[in-house]
Structure formats: structure tokens, C-alpha cells
């Protein structure tokens, strides 16, 4: 070590776990350490070979294009899109999944936020949209969008996750599918709107009531029962998503946002809240979002999206081009609060190293984690595991399956054998660098 101190810019990073996981401190050294760690790359490596002589490309010598009023991504980014499962709008549910493997922050761009609609995307004229609050209140009230615009608003970054996100992991065999197909029904935005508690207070809500039944203006008039305690806590009538009006797929012109709660309960196109003593047991809570258990019973009112993480890159379908240093990265989140730590393994869970958490680390929001890794060119199995500030930990697969079950044969990747899967995801890196989905 003493000799290394005389050459601090090429100090070897500390190994923290098996199969090449490096100390997260290496990420703070502005790449110098990583350059030093390349070593094993050798002759013919992409990063090790000498660069070509520099020459100007054509766009440097011609006038550029017109600046559009509403900007979209470069034409070279056409692959950065959601995957849609009902492109012809057939009479069934339709979904679009977030391409996590192509994103690197904690905010999901609005055009890439996941969407599920149970009767197509409604085309709502905001001037005609109304929100009514009634039931066990002193004064039933109607709010227009213009009226809500006048209220003091709050902004908060947080995730929305479908209760059925990650459902392909209930398969008894690992489906050869991407992180987008497996975990694409979760996204994270800055939401801005009116705290629901202010509107409930204005209506004179009966604080002895237990439930509120929220309903949308979409074609199925989707309806969910929410504990009133959540409505009085951190629920929001959200009008803005990452600074602009909410997208049609996210509930334009307003949605109920319940930080940390099952996506389907965050009723889009919100038009009615009825305060009640009992839950409605609507179709979506009595049937769809009741999770069948191995013994034939079923969970009801799961609500909470529990602590979870997954590696977004490298992930299934990607390929490492050469041995050397790579960054393992992904997102972690918990419906109960902040992420406390994320551990990463490169040897299928035999040893674990602490990942770096990228600021900001916010409650009920995506937290980006990063882990430097020197791949030696041999087989590796990458996993992440998250803990939240409440001490909740992402369960290992064996324990999770013992409690919640799995299919007896591989289902369609579009099927939802059950919901609220929050166990580990494993990506195997082969000697050829190709990344595959495995169970480990």
C-alpha cells in the first residue's frame, strides 16, 4: 500500500465483495481510479486502443435544424420507447412499460412513464372535468380544474408502481425477458398538486369515517377504496407531472396520488371521492388486486408497495463488450419511506458489497444506486437487495416463493400470476458478455 500512495492517481480500488465488486468510494475519484483499474483490458480492447486522428463530422459545417416548440428526443434515440401490449386498441386492457435499461436517473421522462388503461386513454376536455367530494361530509362540494389551480400546491418526487409490476417473476422458470418487460410498470416523477386533506377539510369530512371511494372519469369509471387515513396523510390531487400538466396516460387532467400505494389505487381522471364507513369492494379490489396464495386463500387490501430494487444495467438482453470496469446501476424504492441501503452481489448472493446511493434519497421515491465492478470476463450473477429506513428488507427468492407461491409452468410474460412481487432479480453475465435472466 505504501508504494501505491506515491502514485495516488492509479491506486487500485478496494475489492468489497466476490467476483470483482469494488468499493463505492471508487466512484468518487473522478475516473482516475477506474482508468487505473482497467489493466486487464489489454491489447485490442475498445478503451485501451489508441484513438483515431480527429476530423470534423458534416454537422459541424452546416446550419442546424429548426428549434421545435415542443422538443423530443434525438432521432438516434428511437429505441428509447415504451413497449406497448395493445397497439391496435382491442377491447381489453392496454399497457406501456418503462425502458429502465435505457434510463439512468430517478425521474422517468413523461413520455416514458408506464401507463395502464382499462378502457383506452380518455380524451378529457379539462374545462368540462369536475371533481366531486361527497358521502360522509358536511358539505358535498364540486371542484373545477380552474378552482384547484387557485389552491396552495405542493411538489413531491415519488414513484407509482402497478401492483402487478414484476409479475413475470412469479414464473417457476426465469422468463428470458428484459428489465422493461419484467419491471416496466413502475416509474417516478415529480408530482405537483393540491393536498387532498385540504379539500376533505373544506368539505367537512367526518373524521370517524374509515374509507374513501375514489373514482375516475374513464370508460370503466375505475373505482377503488382507500383508507381515509391515507387521504388525510400524504394523498394529493395531482395536476402536474415533472412540471407540465399530467399526461393523458397518467390521468389528465387530474389524478389521485397516494405515495407508496399500489398503482391502481392512484385513480386517474379523478372525478369523485365518496367518504364512507365501509370499503366498496369494487371489481379491482374484490377480484383483480386480490392476490391468490398457494393455499387457495387470497390477500385483500395489500395496498403497500414494499421495499424493492432491481439492476437496470447491465440487464437481460444487454452485452458487456469487454472485461474491465463497468458500473452496475439500478433503482431501489419503498412505499414506507427512504431507502437505507442497497447491497449488490456479483456472485449470485454468496457475497455482497454496499452500493453508493445517489443523492437525493427521498421517501417513497426511486433511489439510484451505483456499484463499480471489474468484470474479469468470467461468469457472474448480478443481484441487488434493498433495505428501507423502517428496517424492511427485500426478501430472498426462496423465502418469498415459500410464502407467495409461483406458477407450475411458465406463463406468458404479459400474464399476472399474482402481484406485489418484491424479491430479488438476478442477471447472469456469460463469458461472452451476454446478460440473461436467471434465478439464483
Amino acid at each position, binding site marked *: 500500500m505504501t508504494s501505491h500512495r506515491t502514485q495516488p492517481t492509479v491506486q487500485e480500488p478496494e475489492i468489497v465483495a466476490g467476483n470483482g465488486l469494488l468499493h463505492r468510494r471508487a466512484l468518487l475519484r473522478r475516473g482516475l481510479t477506474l482508468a487505473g483499474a482497467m489493466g486487464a483490458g489489454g491489447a485490442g480492447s475498445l478503451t485501451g486502443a489508441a484513438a483515431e486522428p480527429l476530423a470534423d463530422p458534416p454537422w459541424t459545417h452546416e446550419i442546424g435544424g429548426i428549434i421545435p416548440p415542443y422538443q423530443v428526443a434525438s432521432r438516434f434515440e428511437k429505441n428509447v420507447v415504451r413497449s406497448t401490449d395493445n397497439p391496435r386498441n382491442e377491447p381489453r386492457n392496454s399497457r406501456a412499460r418503462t425502458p429502465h435499461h435505457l434510463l439512468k436517473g430517478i425521474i422517468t421522462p413523461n413520455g416514458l412513464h408506464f401507463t395502464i388503461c382499462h378502457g383506452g386513454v380518455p380524451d378529457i376536455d379539462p374545462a368540462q372535468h369536475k371533481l366531486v367530494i361527497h358521502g360522509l361530509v358536511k358539505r358535498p362540494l364540486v371542484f373545477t380544474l380552474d378552482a384547484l389551480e*387557485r389552491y396552495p400546491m405542493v411538489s413531491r418526487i415519488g414513484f407509482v408502481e402497478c401492483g402487478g409490476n414484476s409479475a413475470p417473476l412469479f414464473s417457476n422458470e426465469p422468463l428470458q425477458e428484459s428489465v422493461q418487460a419484467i419491471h416496466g410498470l413502475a416509474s417516478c416523477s415529480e408530482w405537483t398538486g393540491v393536498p387532498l386533506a385540504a379539500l376533505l377539510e373544506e368539505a367537512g369530512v367526518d373524521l370517524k369515517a374509515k374509507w374513501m371511494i375514489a373514482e375516475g372519469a374513464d370508460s370503466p369509471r375505475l373505482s377503488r377504496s382507500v383508507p381515509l387515513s391515507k387521504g388525510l396523510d400524504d394523498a394529493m390531487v395531482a395536476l402536474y407531472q415533472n412540471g407540465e400538466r399530467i399526461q393523458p396516460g397518467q390521468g389528465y387532467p387530474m389524478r389521485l396520488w397516494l405515495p407508496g400505494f399500489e398503482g391502481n389505487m392512484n385513480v386517474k381522471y379523478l372525478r369523485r371521492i365518496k367518504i364512507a364507513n365501509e370499503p366498496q369492494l369494487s371489481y379491482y379490489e374484490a377480484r383483480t388486486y386480490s392476490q391468490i396464495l398457494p393455499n387457495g386463500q387470497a390477500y385483500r387490501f395489500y395496498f403497500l408497495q414494499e421495499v424493492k430494487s432491481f439492476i437496470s444495467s447491465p440487464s437481460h438482453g444487454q452485452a458487456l463488450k469487454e472485461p474491465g470496469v463497468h458500473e452496475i446501476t439500478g433503482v431501489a424504492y419503498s412505499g414506507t419511506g427512504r431507502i437505507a441501503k442497497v447491497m449488490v452481489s456479483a456472485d449470485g448472493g454468496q457475497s455482497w458489497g454496499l452500493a453508493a446511493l445517489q443523492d437525493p434519497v427521498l421517501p417513497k421515491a426511486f433511489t439510484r444506486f451505483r456499484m463499480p465492478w471489474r468484470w474479469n470476463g468470467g461468469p457472474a450473477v448480478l443481484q441487488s437487495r434493498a433495505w428501507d429506513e423502517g428496517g424492511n428488507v427485500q426478501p430472498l427468492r426462496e423465502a418469498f416463493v415459500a410464502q407467495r407461491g409461483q406458477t407450475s409452468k411458465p406463463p406468458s410474460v404479459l400474464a399476472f400470476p399474482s402481484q406485489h412481487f418484491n424479491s430479488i432479480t438476478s442477471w447472469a453475465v456469460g463469458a461472452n458478455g451476454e446478460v440473461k435472466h436467471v434465478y439464483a
Partner: protein
Amino acid sequence: MFTHDRAARAAMLLLSLTCGAALAQAPTPAPGLSPGLGKPISLEDLAPWDISIMPDGTGLPPGGGTPAQGAAIFTEKCALCHGDKGQGGIAGALVGGPPRASLDGGKTIANFWPYATVLFDFTRRAMPFNAPGSLSNTEVYALSAFILAGNKLIGENETMDAASLPKVKMPNRDNFIVRFPERI
């Protein structure tokens, strides 16, 4: 805080005195910064949107229908997607299916749905898929009766209405576990 509340109440009292009887009867509880822009609405005026049906039948409208009446409506408005007898087609089966649901699938009305009221509520608000909300209450009762009879959950000649529908015993009703009871 106390003086703030008093000032706010005084302001609201003044507002209610100047704004007429409706507000005087229901003073707003003075949320600090709320502009108080919700417009009062009568129960009669909001009734068209108050479509929630509770498991005990609260909210069920007048009307009624039998399986035979439902069969004709089903053929006309439902069979295209759900199959001529409700056995399933491009949309899910409404009649029959496996005796038990599992992670391999097979949640059916007979083996999973806890309350018959859900059938009325969902059909009325969401069906037919291409014309949701177009069925009359009588049609929804008749369709509910047809589907329940097809699943042998009621007799072929039973009428479904606000009194009888909530009384239908659904086999799986007591097979649910509240996941986090402490959170409700």
C-alpha cells in the same frame, strides 16, 4: 394558533353573513390558506355520479331481472366478446371455469368473486366495453341473473333485484385475508 383560528373564524363569520343562507348554515372550517372554491352541490344533483354499490346492497337501484331476460340481452350485447354462453372469447369467461383459482390462473366469478353486488356494479359502470354505461338498471339486473344462474349460484327462475342480489352466497366470500389490517 389560537389567535389565528379566531381571526379566521371571524372572517368566515363575516363571509357567511354577507354571502347568504347557504354558507351561513355550513361555515367552512377555515383552512389557513384555502381559497375555499368548492361549490356546494345537492345530493339530487350528484346522484347521477353516485354509482357505488356496496357489498350489503347499499346503492342498488330499483328494478329487477331474471336469467331468461338476461339471456336475450347477453346474446345481443355481450356474446361477441364473452362467447354465446359466457364461456369466454376475446374477453374472459363469465360462466364456468376451474373449481379453484391458482397462480396459473382461473379466477372466476364462481370460484373467486366475494360478492354478487360486484357483478352489478362493474357491469353497469364498465360494460359493454365499447359502450360503457349504456345498459339500463333492469338490463344489468337481468344480466347479473343470467351470469349467476349460468354459474349455478342462483336458480333458473330467480329474480335479481336490490333485495335478492346482496343475499346471493358467493362460495369464496370468506376466503380473503386483509394483508395489513393495522394500516386500515
